[in-house]
């Protein structure tokens, strides 16, 4: 019979808390990253990386975990989006998927259409202020106002107004045709 040290018990507790958080947030973190990248493999990779960072460098005491988690995920997603040549690769992967060499796609025409819609929405988001685009992505990934507020460092009581503003901007750009170059 052996007694575990205090330290070991604390470590185990920390690990258990981390695993709970992982299980509770995995799908939502993936959802945010998928919306940003439009790519399953990339979104899963970035989600794993987000949790790895959380485990290796947990946030300071005064920060909430959910806020930290989604902020890191969003930043990773944006960095991936900005990386050079990404779009080209993405398109080719889309071609690959339709080929069923990687995964089955029973309907190439539908796939094209879906891709088209995605690209259009992503283009509009890229024309918006980054914070507004993030707000829409986070909300549509199912985050609560509280979680959004923690992620974007805004007051929870202002999320509603910010959302309305972002939605109006989205619709304005959409109706304008959304064919302007992103302004960096």
């Amino acid at each position, binding site marked *: 019979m052996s007694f575990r040290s205090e330290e070991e018990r604390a470590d185990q507790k920390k690990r258990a808390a981390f695993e709970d958080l992982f299980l509770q947030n995995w799908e939502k973190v993936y959802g945010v990253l998928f919306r940003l990248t439009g790519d399953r493999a990339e979104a899963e990779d970035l989600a794993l990386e987000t949790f790895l960072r959380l*485990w290796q460098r947990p946030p300071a005491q005064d920060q909430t975990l959910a806020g930290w988690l989604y902020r890191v995920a969003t930043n990773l997603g944006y960095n991936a989006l900005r990386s050079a040549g990404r779009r080209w690769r993405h398109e080719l992967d889309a071609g690959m998927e339709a080929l069923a060499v990687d995964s089955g796609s029973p309907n190439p*025409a*539908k796939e094209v259409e879906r891709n088209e819609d995605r690209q259009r*929405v992503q283009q509009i988001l890229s024309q918006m202020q980054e914070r507004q685009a993030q707000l829409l992505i986070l909300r549509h990934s199912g985050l609560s106002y509280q979680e959004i507020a923690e992620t974007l460092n805004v007051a929870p009581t202002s*999320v509603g107004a910010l959302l309305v503003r972002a939605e109006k901007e*989205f619709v304005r750009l959409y109706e304008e045709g959304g064919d302007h170059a992103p302004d960096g």
Partner: protein
Amino acid sequence: MHLTDNSLRAYLDQQLPEPERSRIESHLQDCPECAERLAELSALAKQVSLHMAALKPGAAEAPRPASLALRQFNQKETRPMFNIFSKRNLRPLWVTIAVIAVLAIALNFQPVQALAAGFLGLFRVQQVTILPINSNTIQNLQNNQDISKSVSQLFSDSVTTTRAATPPQQVPDASSASKLAGFEVRQWKDSNLPADITVSSGQAFTFTVNRSRAQQILTSLGNNSLQLPQNIDGAKISVDIPAGVSTAYGDCPTMSAMRLREKANLAASTPAASAASASDCLVLLQVPSPAIKTPPSIDPAQLAAIGLQALGMSAQDAQSFSQKVNWSTTLVIPIPTGEVSYQDIQVDGAKGYVLAPVQGTGPGNARYSVVWVKNGIIYSVAGTGDPAQGLAVANDLQ
């Protein structure tokens, strides 16, 4: 006093705590003005929500279950190279394969494919050649909304699936793979690494060319002098992609991940993943040539020359390239110059190419891919590190 947009929006999203919620409800009952604004905000939210739904993961894009992801995390978290060899870094290998496959079947995602390779006679791959394309041209094409809209319209109206794809299947050995895929599947003779064999089903579809739409695409590329021949209008093109086999040797995150997704069976991938180091991953892909059938009146060289000019090639170069290539037997791989380098080689008794990204354009280790065609089957060996290793494997197949 009227309610703010902020409160109304939060009320719509059911994000208000109870006393606040009731207060708003009672106000709304007495204030038609605020009730109307609520309706407006609700309509706005719905409109945006409808568009944002396009970004939502589809059924095939759902993540692996959280419990499996956690197990994978626990396994990876202790490995120091976590980020260096993730699936993401491996993907350009697949991209190379995708380029081949996409071009070969003239799939419809890009004007490149649609124009340069879209209208071949009976197409059976017997050899492979390289077409360098300016990567800026490609980027510009892709960023052009009009073009991508026209291309998707060109195809979305007229594609009929004649044999639908089914999910990839894992098989225990090469003979089962041969049986399932319907051709003789080859293996790396001297491998002592664990092999992971997956058979993908392939698919077949037909589409009918709408000349005016195709012409519209050409015109929106900015070159008004290019005219497609009249006789392509209404041409019925059928594409049949046979089943293909990919074999992953060693520790291959992409394959493991595919397996995870397909079978949700993490345990099976664990020994391989921990036994081999990252640089031990090699992927051998073999796909019999796709068959593309077009009416005999169509002249592939003529169309290719038009397509190449649309991609920015001079009329003279386009003419000479398209005459040089036998379009009904050659797999043309477009290479974005400046991003991917290539070298022609003799491999497996055939002519092939080694493709590698130009240094500094991607993260992680250098990736390469060896591509060749033999007896009507397209082969590719992809890996990281020294291409000589991939070449050795390519020359050691049985």
